[in-house]
């Protein structure tokens, strides 16, 4: 299946400025598996942005699946569907 992954601001520093890409994943891939794939692809810096030293989700990094924020670690077991959009971003701000 194909999903779209978007990287915002500081996450683009990890992806060498790739802002968005289509990835082909195996069916039923979960968000945490996607994060592992991206860490393999872009290095541990990617993962480090997402988790605290205690391996908890960093509240200042947003993981959004189709407009839905994943705020708890167990939500990372969410299975992705074809054509999902997954975004990695610092907290979004507006105006300025």
């Amino acid at each position, binding site marked *: 299946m194909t999903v779209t992954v978007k990287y915002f601001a500081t996450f*683009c520093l990890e992806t060498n*400025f790739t*802002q968005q890409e289509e990835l082909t994943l195996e069916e039923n891939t979960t968000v945490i598996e996607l994060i592992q794939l991206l860490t393999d692809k872009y290095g541990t810096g990617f993962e480090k942005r997402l988790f605290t030293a205690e391996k908890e989700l960093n509240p*200042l990094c947003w993981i959004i699946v189709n407009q839905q924020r994943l705020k708890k670690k167990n939500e990372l077991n969410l299975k992705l569907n074809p054509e999902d959009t997954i975004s990695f971003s610092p907290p979004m*701000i507006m*105006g300025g």
Partner: protein
Amino acid sequence: MNKKSHAWQGKILWVNLTTEEISTTPLDKELREKFLGQAGINAKLLYDHLEPGIDPLSPENHLIFGVGPLTGTLAPCSGRFTVTAKSPLTNAFGDSNCGGHWGPELKYAGYDHIVITGKSKQPVFIWINDDKIELRDASKLWGKTTNETEDQLKEELADEKVQVASIGPAGENLVNFAAIICNYSRAAGRTGMGAVMGSKNLKAIAVRGTNRLTVAQPQEFSATVSESEESILADPLYEFSSTFGTPAIMRMAQNLGFLPTKNFQESTFAGADKLSGERLLENYVTRQKGCFNCPVSCNRYYEVTEGEYEGTTGEGPEYENLGAFGSKCGNDNLPSVLKSNDLANKLGLDTISTGTVIGWAMELFQRDILTTVDTDGLNLEWGNHQAIIKLIEKIAYREGLGDILAYGALQASKKIGNSAEDYVIHIKGMEYPSVDVRGTKGMALGFAVSPRGADHLKALPLYEVAPEVYQKDIKKELGIEIGEEYWKKYETKPELIAWHEDWHCIVDSLGLCKLEGIALKPLRPCHFTDLLSTATGWEITEEELRTIGKRIWNLERLFNAREGFTRQDDLPPKRILNEPISTGPSKGETLDQDKFESMLDQYYKLRGWTAQGIPSKEKLEKLELEVE
């Protein structure tokens, strides 16, 4: 507070350009205690000295420059100054805050405020060299761009360290949204302060200062400065603001569906990725740039090295510039936006109003209200970046259609007629910044009640869409519980906005940058009281300081009330109130008129204002605001 004014220099400089009289008066203790400095004291001086109802471009207008008690000190991000006058764009209270290095230099020259009145017979510049003040002939500078003016003045005055605040051709030609520029790209942009300067035949103010600036408790002040710096550097978003600055907001706005596109007809833009802060950093940024004593350095130098705009260099742009010359005009060509930004700075134009006015003209073209007959043959179809650049020049030099657009969209719409006004996205005559506030109800309120018209900077609740970032502060300060999709809610927004407004009045009056203050949150009210107390020796509580913020806010409101502004002038335009967002993830989101008006009622009540939005007598007494 000590009689001796540590941190303040304790002097106001008065320059009458008609009589060429120059004098100084002490900065009263009472004025400092009640209005703090910079924006606050500027507002008070304007209120007290300006005759209501005057033409903003007449010699009667007062053009006031001010710095705050922390400007030029070791406090982080303390390079700010404010310019205040009655605005020609709105006929309301006008002010504009600017960074760079000019403000600290004025402070070192020994002044907290300059009040400029009258009109010079011929073009002049003011040369402030410590206590030596001269009016010098600027005939040779008239017609020059702001960067040429800065370079030539440094040469003429034979000192590279001279700081220059100048106007370009736009200010000379009285474009109602002309800016004052210093350090080539730092702008006192909004509300047309550059036009007021031009109306006085004043091309520039050059400053060199070598005076000492003392603080009351050097050791304690230094400790507070260190704490404040640590707070900025430890902020989890430091890397974000320092590396990308505001341009990274472009794709966020797109993702949320709040990116004004084609004059607010749409709220997502297919070309947003091409205009992004990430693209800017990857392809065009050459190095970072910061204002005076700023550990963040959120600004950038850029260079275009290939293509149609090869050779373009400049500084910035901010998110607002990308929105103004980009999505609002349906333009996804980033190099052209960089060119437009540089051109606007050189010609001395407010980028937000300029881009928004051009976007509005493009919609009139789309609707056949303007045709090539009116545009001197220019094809104003969406995204025509060559036409955008041509129009920027035409506005600054008031040529053809540019002569009409130079009034600002609202005033120009009256000249164009034929329902052109229906498409002006403004409040009080000032064009909206790049936020579709139909999605963010707090910002909708903040834009509406700002004394200077549609304005993101007075309230600036940057985290309204990410409230959990400052959830603890908001709970502690306001007792507000923030739920899911807080930005969509009307409830509690009056409290949220009033809190931001009050504290931003303080930040703007202390001389600090609001981006690193309340807006992005590393500096909190406790930092402001500590910095102020140790710098001045004035023991002040957070509550007392916030009361000063409220006093300043009410005074600016009173200024507008005296000029005849009422509740009607706080209402968003037709499109924002009546039409739902038409595209993207926020499609269908509306700013419901009844709910908005009820939010406005609550806000007025909270502020102690009448149902017409006029500060009540009791409120004024409580704030010790004596007015006739």
